[in-house]
């Protein structure tokens, strides 16, 4: 049995990134994720890697762009307002088909907001990483173990599909400490013949670029990219089903909300309510299969979120609005309690009556 280490979520991400072969980290301090930068600052010099505190989150994402163009694994991390600063860079990475790994440890917003946990960057991650047509792989851990596992997975997927993989954690995931096993079999990174590493006078020059002024050419790039995205939607969705076999009240939650909701589901079952939980692990691609399976037997869906309701729209889409979908939420850094979720379950079980 592999040894387990007690680690903070943020630090588990950093260690897993290093194990995945990342030797370049660029970042800027912002709570609640600065531990990632601090860990990298200590570790990278010891292993011949590069830690650099950039002058801003904008500079950091562009340093990521530079390293990625040379074909190496690289990452940055930030929290909500800092991720907003990276929008331009994320769009450029997508337009140039560059792999990148990025972490958002979400805090309350909008604006400067607060530093307590939230999930209110769901839209930003799944709909609006930056301008233009593009998607990012969005991975939502619900434990420190998943913070590490999804980091390793994120680097692999980013390289495989030449796109950005984002771990979308909430502040609780970043700050909590749990035992984690870091025993990974890391597959070697794929060859990158497109990378700008110097021609060595042995090949035509490579160009890393997202500018295509001829609209026919730019259109083709977009359509080709979306073929890749279609393949990802069909093959890379991940989710967990908890007590879903006979579920009539279906809870949908990710991250800390899923941990809380599991407690509520257990309590509901004790009261004889057939509650179950679908926990998306990829938020993009959003897992449609468990909803298709559940919708006929379900009476209602409840989206449990630390936001004013963002994932709920994907729940409505995945169920094709065949059943009522309601929101159970907190915002601003507050976390729903199991009691609050249980009340919502009872209400749904009573057909909406309190």
């Amino acid at each position, binding site marked *: 049995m592999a040894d387990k280490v007690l680690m903070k979520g943020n630090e588990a991400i950093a260690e897993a990134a290093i194990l995945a072969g990342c030797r370049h980290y660029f970042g800027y301090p912002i709570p609640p994720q600065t531990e990632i930068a601090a860990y990298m600052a200590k570790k990278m010099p010891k292993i011949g890697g590069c830690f650099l505190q*950039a002058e801003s989150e904008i*500079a950091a994402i562009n340093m990521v*762009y530079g390293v*990625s*163009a040379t074909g190496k694994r690289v990452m940055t991390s930030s929290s909500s307002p800092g991720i907003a600063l990276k929008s331009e860079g994320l769009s450029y990475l997508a337009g*140039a088909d560059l792999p990148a790994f990025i972490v958002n440890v979400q805090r309350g917003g909008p604006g400067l907001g607060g530093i307590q946990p939230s999930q209110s960057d769901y839209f930003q991650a799944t709909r609006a990483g930056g301008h233009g047509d593009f998607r990012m792989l969005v991975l939502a851990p619900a434990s420190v173990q998943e913070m590490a596992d999804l980091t390793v997975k994120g680097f692999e997927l980013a390289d495989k599909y030449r796109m950005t993989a984002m771990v979308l954690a909430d502040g609780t995931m970043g700050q909590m400490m749990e035992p984690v096993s870091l025993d990974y079999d890391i597959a070697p990174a794929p060859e990158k013949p497109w990378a700008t*590493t*110097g*021609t060595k006078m042995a090949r035509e020059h490579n160009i890393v*670029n997202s500018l295509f002024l001829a609209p026919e050419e730019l259109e083709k790039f977009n359509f080709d990219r979306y073929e890749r995205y279609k393949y990802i939607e069909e093959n890379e969705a991940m989710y967990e089903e908890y007590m879903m076999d006979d579920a009539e009240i279906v809870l949908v939650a990710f991250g800390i909300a899923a941990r809380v909701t599991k407690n509520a589901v257990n309590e509901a079952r004790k009261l004889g309510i057939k509650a179950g939980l679908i926990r998306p692990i990829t938020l993009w691609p959003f897992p449609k299969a468990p909803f298709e399976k559940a919708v006929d037997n379900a009476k209602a869906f409840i989206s449990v979120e630390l936001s004013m309701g963002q994932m709920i729209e994907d729940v409505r889409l995945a169920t094709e609005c065949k059943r009522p979908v309601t929101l159970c939420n907190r915002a601003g850094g507050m976390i729903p309690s199991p009691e609050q979720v249980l009340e919502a379950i009872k209400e749904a079980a009573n057909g909406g009556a309190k």
Partner: protein
Amino acid sequence: MVVFDKPHALNDMPMHYCPGCTHGIIHRLVAEVIDELGIEGRTIGIAPVGCSVMAYNYFNCDMIEAAHGRAPAIATGVKRADPENHVVFTYQGDGDLASIGMAETVHAAARNENITIIFVNNAIYGMTGGQMAPTSLPGQITQTSPYGRDTNHCGFPIRVCEMLSQLEGPEYLERVTVNSVKNIRNAKKAIKKAFQNQLDGKGFSLVEVVSSCPTNWGLTPQAALKWIDDNMLPYYPLGVYKDRSAAKEETK
């Protein structure tokens, strides 16, 4: 016997620059230096947003297109990905380097990133049709200063070499121009030094090339070259603003 030829580091793509644009001269000087130093196979150039956005089509080395102003940050990544093997240069205009990219410029200089920056200063935003630049002169008429740049309203132009010379970080800062044969020869020497410094591991080297934009200055190419002498150089004097290695030599 071939007396004069296109440098190998420039390819055959027809350039899109305006007649009389100094980008053509500056591209050639950079390419000649790359050839003479024998570094084309190791060089990765970073193109800006501006008239020279398509520089990636003109240089034969590996090229990266940067977001507006972000080239020094991208260069930081490319250089630190393989400091021994990658020779990295950015090629940027005045909007790219001194407006939106000012933070990236200052911090790359402060960190003494071992890169080479070619800064083309023609006091105007050419590609977007002739708007005011952070280096536009007081009274200069542009599309966004149609009554002439009013320093009461929007302040004074920025002298980048002077400003960066206050930092401990940079190795070498020189301002040159390309409006005469003598000046072009000097400019090439400076550009070569800026690349040689990188090869020697000496650090951040920036050459500011005072340039013309006949189209958006509303002048003929020859008149534009004269405008450099009459108006640009008095505000942006030519010269070496920092040379750490030379200063060290002197104190020995």
